[in-house]
């Protein structure tokens, strides 16, 4: 059997080889933590080595800064342009590279064979000659109307993204464009592939982030047709606690279940609640606090030093709604743990932590709306962790799902999206039910 590293290297080599012969470009689907950024940096380096100027498009300044930093480290002599908006505050990790030029105008970056910026900034560029190549990162999070605004800038493009995550979002509720191949509310890749069905689609086969306990579960629930595996084998990633519990309570049992199996479901008694459920908020905060108090230490084979318990960068709490995140943040701040990252699924996209506590989107609800059922939301929340994921939910979520089968209207000419949120939720809950701990 080939090792994970070899498998990933083969896939990358195929993709980079495919660039040369691409007519219009290619699409790369990447499961969570499969080395998407690495691929973008290597593809940019490969194309510029071949003398072809490249424009790199990412969705947020944070993402652009990350890519700029990594590309600058990979190619210390390459002149790199960072195009930015007027309100952008230069990041230290970008400024420290001597060979990165920063400007708000593309004309100032004329000498740079590679220029990186956000899609929104690229959309303001007018009258520039077309770039032979573009690399579009997080292309599944980009709305197709934004692609429409930048597509005139390049001839060919490499689109990289994670198809399992949250679809782009619009506050406007309309079915006006349902079924149109250029529906502006669809993702950039969806529209691109409908108009260019012969465009090759590759898949990255190995997740470097997810542990062996998570990869098969996530792969089956959210990526049913393009499976992937974890880079590490069973038992190679471990969580230990530097203190022992005094007595035995549900929180500690949950922590130990998560440490030994990679998953835990902390189940509160069934109840219909308002959106910000005080007990669930308290439970999420208590679990995050307990992880810190118990001195969680993480061991992974690819990191020589065992992880130091540092709440800020290694523990996160994920929710569906902003007010839930705010409430949990307030409890943690009051408890002296301001460093734990607490945010919504939308904002946790693309980030990575050691242990993640998830407030289940359907916990305590009376109904299962499309928003709360969305597969991408659950996928983001349950794929941010390197070691363990603890889900907090009220009892009765499977029954709620059974009572609310998908009732979204079906439109003609709309490609069916797999998996649907209902199936993904059931699949994940079925797995989690093995690691259920009832709250005392």
């Amino acid at each position, binding site marked *: 059997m080939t090792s994970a590293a070899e498998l990933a290297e083969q896939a990358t080599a195929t993709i980079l080889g495919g660039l040369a012969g691409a007519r*219009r470009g290619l699409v790369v689907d990447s499961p969570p933590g499969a080395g998407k950024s690495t691929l973008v940096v290597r593809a940019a380096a490969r194309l510029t080595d071949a003398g072809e100027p490249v424009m790199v498009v990412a969705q947020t300044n944070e993402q652009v800064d990350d890519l700029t930093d990594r590309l600058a480290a990979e190619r210390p002599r390459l002149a790199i342009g960072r195009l930015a908006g007027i309100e952008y505050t230069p990041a230290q990790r970008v400024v420290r590279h001597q060979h990165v030029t920063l400007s708000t105008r593309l004309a100032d970056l004329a000498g740079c064979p590679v220029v990186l910026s956000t899609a929104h900034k690229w*959309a*303001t560029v*007018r009258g520039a000659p077309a770039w032979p190549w573009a690399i579009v990162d997080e292309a599944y999070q980009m709305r*197709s*109307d934004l*692609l*429409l*605004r930048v*597509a*005139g800038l390049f001839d060919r493009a490499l689109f990289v993204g994670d198809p399992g995550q949250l679809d782009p979002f*619009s*506050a*406007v509720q*309309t079915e*006006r*464009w349902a079924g*149109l*191949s*250029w*529906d*502006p*509310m669809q993702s*950039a890749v969806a*529209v*691109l592939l409908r*108009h*260019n069905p012969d465009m090759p689609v590759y898949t990255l086969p190995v997740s470097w982030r997810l542990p062996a306990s998570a990869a098969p579960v996530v792969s089956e629930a959210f990526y049913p047709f393009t499976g992937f595996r974890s880079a590490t084998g069973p038992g190679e990633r471990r969580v230990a606690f530097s203190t022992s519990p005094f007595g035995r309570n549900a929180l500690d049992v949950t922590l130990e279940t998560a440490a030994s199996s990679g998953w835990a479901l902390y189940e509160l008694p069934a109840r219909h609640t*308002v959106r910000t459920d005080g007990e669930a908020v308290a439970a999420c905060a208590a679990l995050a606090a307990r992880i810190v108090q118990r001195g969680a230490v993480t061991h992974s084979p690819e990191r020589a030093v065992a992880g130091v318990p540092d709440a800020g960068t290694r523990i996160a709490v994920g929710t569906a709604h902003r*007010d839930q995140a*705010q409430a949990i943040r307030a409890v943690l701040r009051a408890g002296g743990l301001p460093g734990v990252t607490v945010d919504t699924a939308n904002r946790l996209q693309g980030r990575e932590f050691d242990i993640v506590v998830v407030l289940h989107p359907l916990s305590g609800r009376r109904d299962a709306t499309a928003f709360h059922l969305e597969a991408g939301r659950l996928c983001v929340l349950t794929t941010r962790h390197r070691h363990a994921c603890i889900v907090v939910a009220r009892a009765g979520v499977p029954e709620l799902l059974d009572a609310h089968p998908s009732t979204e209207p079906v439109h003609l000419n709309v490609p069916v999206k797999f998996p649907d949120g209902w199936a993904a939720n059931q699949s994940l809950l079925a797995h989690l039910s093995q690691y259920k701990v009832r709250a005392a």
Partner: protein
Amino acid sequence: MSTLTSLARAMAAASGTAQPACTVRHVHLSPRPLVFIPLALAGEANAPLAALVGDDPGAPNLLVVPEPRDRDLRFAFAADLAAVVLRYTASYCADQEPTGGRDPGLRYADAPQLLVPNPGGIAFTRLLGRSTRFRRAEGPYAVAESVPVLGRWLTFFADRTESPASSLMLAATDALSAHWATGQSPAEDRNLAVLLGWIDPPPGMSGAQAAALAEDPLRSPPTGPATDPTFDNEVLDQRILAVRTARLTGGGRAYQRAEAALTDALATQLTPTWTLMWRAAELLRGLPEAAHVRRRWDADKDAFTWHAGHIREGGPPQPRRDGAVSAAGRLANTERVQEMVAAQRAFDDPLVMAEYRMTGEAFAGRVAAAEPDRVDATGRRRVLRPRVTVETGDAVLAEPGATLTSPARPSQKARVIAVTEANGRTRVLLELQGGMGRALTPEPGSVPAIGEPVCYAAFGDGYQPPPAFPASEDTPWTHGGPPPRYVPADEDAREDWS
């Protein structure tokens, strides 16, 4: 449904009376709206059956399709409807006024307004517009010349309902339930008779009692486009059959009698709704108009002027489907307008702002301290930057560095410098910029004084420039390339399924 709306609904259910959800009216209401109540035939795709239409409460026009399955008669009905609607729209194409703003131009001084009972009425209008706007006055299946023009106007009105800023066409149930919370579910609010029972019960009756009575289809027939199934079975079916039989057996007096009987039956179904519609308009008119409504109605007048010109100059009808560029442009525009209207509603109405205060996106309190003459001399130029401290009991989500806007001074930006909490109260230190005149001392009243009640929100009603899209003929390869040019043809009116 927000927590505040849920509370208002619970209070309405408990008290049996609808509760106000707004303190002011957020839609424009024309002094002379065109009320349009369409009825459709059950079992046929958008087949018109009858309509009661008019701009005078005392003089409704009853239009009937005597044989709704006969397509020629449907287009005769469309021609009758066109006579009323086109006369009404044309009556607004006279007086003009300057548009104001930067480009000097003229627009019509007022615009028409279509009132339908419910969202179903809007959907019916959209489909009737679609089935008529591509028809032609010559060639196969020729129709009256006014029919395609009617189709373009109906499409125009229906399209405008997608913009949350527009009042050119309103569904009465939507407009009413945006301003009052009833003790029933939003789905039940779509019945105009029941909704009006809650909001405006007859004397001696509670809202809940009046609503329960109004649920009886004999007392209050459905407000369309769907008809009451019992009426369909027991009355409509026989009378349509009688019309057909009379026509097949030679027409004449028998036909006229049968047609009159059908018309009478349909009038019984439409007339109660006609009364309800004018009562709804009157109730809405009773609310004071919100401050931003006039500006949004000006945009409606611009749209009306543009479309009237487009038809006059022989422009093509609205396409059946949006192209890639126009779809993206329309979405971007709707998103901008939606955000703008949400902010304007909150700025105009303390009850709407209360929703944002509950979520922490806005807070209200009193000015506890003020430095109105503070000058910032650290930059190249000395600039006026007064600071005020607002004390509030609301939850404050704003973090230092955030920019806030106050409804009382929308052109002024307030930057959060510090947020401190003590004894359950929050003190927010704000630095003000703009809207204070050009001198280094603020104009009187431009900086809130100590003790003044103020409100600050994390959103402003400011203008955002529309994003630039490529021209339609430059549609990129990712979106299917440039579309073919539109050439009118006889087949345009054909549907894929027809």
